[in-house]
């Protein structure tokens, strides 16, 4: 198969190349694997020169360029709360290559960073060829097929309050493997009561999703055993996780409440 690499010089030029069937190769951990299996397209778009590999932190606002790697996050002391997330993704070589942008497109059971970013209520900035647009990550993920012909430029979110972010990824093989279920939660509290909790699941559907019923069960309550039990009991409600080599959907639905209960009780 004949493959052409095109180095994009401007973000706005990328969508036109994508419209012609080209795909962006970021870290390449998924895209080049497809290519090796003869599934790749004829045109690969390289976006290394667009300056998308920066982490910017202004006050409480964090902006992660789409080309920021999991290893960059793991080495940034300001983002310590995200280290358990980056650390849970592949081995060191995968982390050195895997990017934020690629993680938003990773099919389940992958996409662990997207789970954390969803719980952080992140916003995605993307270029559709005409303009730079921003949209909530949740909307992006729900329709991500639609955004495959756009260039993700960055993801931004507000730094969570100290000790309000929690993360767990259940796996079969330590220290790292693909997710059985991944849970990220931001649990802000006011006067001891949970206010605006955000809980996100990975591997419980085709992409990361919010556990709204569990969130509502916690609202305005102290994080005590009964509130936690109520939230956990609702965890798998309405989810349709896939069967794959790591677990059946049935098994994922059985363990999701248990891991949520442990995470909230921790």
């Amino acid at each position: 198969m004949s493959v052409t690499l095109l180095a994009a010089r401007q973000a706005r030029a990328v969508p036109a190349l994508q419209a012609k069937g080209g795909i962006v190769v970021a870290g390449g951990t998924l895209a080049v694997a497809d290519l090796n299996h003869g599934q790749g397209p004829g045109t690969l778009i390289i976006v290394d020169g667009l300056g998308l590999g920066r982490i910017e932190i202004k006050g409480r606002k964090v902006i992660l360029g789409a080309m920021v790697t999991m290893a960059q996050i793991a080495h940034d002391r300001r983002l310590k709360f995200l280290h358990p997330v980056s650390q849970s993704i592949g081995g060191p070589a995968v982390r050195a290559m895997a990017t934020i942008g690629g993680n938003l497109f990773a099919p389940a059971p992958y996409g662990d960073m997207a789970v954390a970013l969803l719980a952080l209520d992140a916003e995605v900035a993307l270029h559709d060829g005409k303009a730079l647009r921003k949209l909530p990550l949740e909307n992006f993920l729900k329709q991500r097929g639609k955004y495959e012909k756009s260039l993700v430029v960055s993801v931004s979110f507000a730094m969570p309050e100290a000790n309000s972010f929690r993360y767990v990824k259940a796996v079969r093989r330590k220290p790292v493997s693909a997710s059985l279920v991944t849970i990220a939660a931001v649990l802000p509290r006011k006067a001891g009561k949970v206010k605006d909790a955000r809980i996100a699941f990975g591997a419980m559907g085709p992409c990361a999703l919010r556990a709204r019923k569990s969130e509502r069960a916690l609202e305005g309550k102290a994080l005590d055993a009964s509130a936690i039990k109520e939230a956990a009991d609702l965890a798998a409600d309405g989810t349709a996780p896939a069967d794959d080599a790591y677990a059946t959907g049935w098994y994922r639905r059985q363990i999701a409440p248990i891991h949520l209960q442990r995470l909230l009780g921790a």
Partner: protein
Amino acid sequence: MTKVPVQFTLNGREQNEFVDSGSTLLAALRDKLGLYGTKAGCHQGTCGACTVIIDGSPQLSCLTLAERCAGKSVTTLEGLTGNGALHPLQQAFMEGFAAQCGFCTPGMILAAKSLLDRNPSPSRDDVIDAISGNICRCTGYDPIINAILTAAEQLRGARKSA
């Protein structure tokens, strides 16, 4: 197939190569340059046999497009044996029976080297993390972990006496 020139540093030496557009670094190393130390296992990132060091970090050569290595510095197993002497990691692997069939060994050694380059005094858990993307079907991992810890100790000793 379009040929593209790529200039990069390979094991400390300037290298100019024509590679097939869209081909991987793994293909360039093995098929063009005859450097068979880098092993080709799964071609999908899961086995770690093709691990090399690019600009100081461990990366999977099967998932790295050769053209994107332009201007970068690549280290393969062949780059470890300057003046013919084995690298302390190789010595420790040999003495500690950390290689059986040997297929995973180059990847393991490069994953370990990039750990020791950054962290000369790793804990056992650091070592386990460093090789967590590398699969070994033979040894059961313990001899590999022990060999890396032994090599770390030797390298620290060598540095002190230098």
